[in-house]
């Protein structure tokens, strides 16, 4: 408030000397913003518009001519007779399968972990760091590591199963549904710490008095969880669900490095296909159109999730 008045005074240029008045030149804020805005404009705003422009052209990076084709690239994605239709929607389906399979796990399992770590006990910080550690590694490391561990013949996972006398010939990265199970499991292992830490912060924001009151009322653990913990976590939950959904639908590295899209193209995700089309075959008009279709689908899903959570009185 004080700031607003002060700046109004400053812009009038007749502010009295001295006193607790903020005197800032009109250009000052913009000068502070300039370096960032140059980057932001060039590498965020401009590409957002430029990508739309590219998607309206037959944009072959390697050819000189890039004829305007209007909505033809989009049309091709919806036309079952076109060359890209089949593969694009298969990749969208793969992204959908992965998202639908991974999001519930990535929302629920870290919540369990966070509840486990939310008590105070010696070594809490240590365990929190341990569970978070894989997240610190990049998808390239995770990918090559699990490709090795999950190798059906030589991998440690089947090796371990063999050692304890369980079936040890599961085609973890080459057969269905195993490839999906592997990709989801690896992703849960890799990113569980991120959501868990966000839940933990949310849990610590729930006032303790609420739990004490519930204890006096004689509610059990489950009632406490349903009536205090879950409602208290609602804003965090919305963030976690949307954020996880966006992350899962951008899945790319795990498929590229672990299953290499196999079997067939079953685990080739939308991003993998878009990257192949746009950045390997340099078919950028089509690829740009695909990425806007994907983005639109994600925006829609985000809005729906947001509404679902907001409109309900209790989670």
């Amino acid at each position: 408030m004080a700031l607003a008045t002060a700046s109004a005074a400053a812009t009038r240029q007749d502010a009295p000397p001295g006193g607790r008045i903020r005197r800032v030149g009109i250009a000052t804020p913009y000068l502070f913003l300039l370096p960032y805005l140059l980057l932001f404009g060039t590498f965020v705003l401009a590409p957002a518009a430029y990508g739309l422009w590219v998607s309206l052209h037959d944009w072959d990076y390697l050819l000189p001519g890039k004829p305007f084709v209007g909505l033809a690239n989009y049309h091709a994605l919806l036309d079952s007779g076109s060359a890209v239709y089949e593969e694009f929607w298969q990749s969208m389906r793969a992204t959908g399968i992965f998202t639908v399979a991974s999001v519930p796990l990535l929302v629920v399992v870290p919540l369990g972990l966070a509840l486990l770590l939310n008590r105070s006990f010696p070594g809490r910080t240590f365990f929190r760091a341990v569970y978070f550690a894989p997240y610190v590694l990049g998808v390239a490391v995770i990918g090559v590591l699990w490709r090795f561990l999950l190798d059906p013949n030589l991998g440690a996972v089947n090796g371990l199963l063999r050692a304890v006398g369980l079936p040890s010939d599961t085609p973890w990265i080459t057969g269905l549904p195993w490839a999906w199970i592997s990709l989801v499991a690896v992703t849960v292992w890799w990113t569980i710490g991120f959501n868990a830490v966000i839940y933990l912060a949310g849990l610590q924001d729930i006032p303790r008095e609420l739990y004490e009151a519930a204890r006096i009322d004689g509610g059990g653990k489950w009632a406490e969880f349903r009536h205090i913990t879950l409602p208290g976590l609602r804003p965090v939950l919305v963030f976690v669900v949307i954020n996880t959904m966006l992350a899962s639908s951008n899945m790319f590295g795990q498929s590229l490095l672990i299953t290499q899209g196999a079997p067939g193209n079953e685990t080739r995700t939308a991003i993998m296909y878009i990257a192949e089309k746009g950045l390997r075959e340099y078919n950028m008009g089509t690829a740009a159109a695909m990425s806007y279709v994907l983005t639109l689908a994600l925006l829609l899903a985000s809005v729906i999730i947001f509404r679902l959570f907001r409109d309900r009185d209790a989670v």
Partner: protein
Amino acid sequence: MTRTRGIAWYTILIGLSLIFIAPLVWMLITSFKTTGEATRVPPTLLPQEPSTHAYDTLFAADSQTPVLRWFLNSLLAAGAQAVLILVVASMAAYALARLEFRGKKLLFGLIIGTLFVPVFTLIIPNFLIVDRFGWLDTLWALIVPGAAGAFGVFFLRQFFLGLPRELEEAAQLEGANAWQIFSKVILPLSKPALATLAVISFLANWNDFIWPVYVLFSPEHFTLPPGLSILQGAYTIDYPVIMGGAALASVPALILFLITQRYVIEGVSRSGLKG
């Protein structure tokens, strides 16, 4: 009673820890095995004939896969980008947190809005823009565009908003201008937040995969993540070499995390909640 419960409690926690740690330990152990031993069935737990074969191969002077070079490239790109982000994001965040100007709300909304745009939407047009700058296949492509992200600005703005105004006002009374207040008051008070952002930015860039895979073409310009993917292609069955490369990419990240874990975890949770 409580004692047995305590034991059960720690058994669960330690059991879970093994799930997270064992694969990483296995990676490290494998990198010290011979090629033959790494793929032995059943696998050996510890190297029977410990070998530096993997690292000898990775560091060989005439290597087709110059890992040391990738390592230095990664270090340079991630370090330079972290510095760039600290500079531009702290300045922008100061304006957004502490100064008044026309269009502030709109601008902030626009910047935050882009947090929700999937990175991939921009990757193809950004490729074309980077190409126009002549940055394809150079580290510039890895350093500059990524610094335009909204996270740093958002993160520092939140921190600046929480700083007490008194010191700032005192400096003002002594005639300090906005730049002096920013550099002599705000920044020194923000060291923990700046360090947190530096580490988070460094790790994100160090681990970035999709962008370097497509904008870098020559192996000598690679960073570690795309390098690992060609290692996997080049040494298909030489797992110690691949695991050695993965270890080289993980160990610095893990050490950095261990040293700064409290800040990283807090930074992640704080920024996550406000998203």
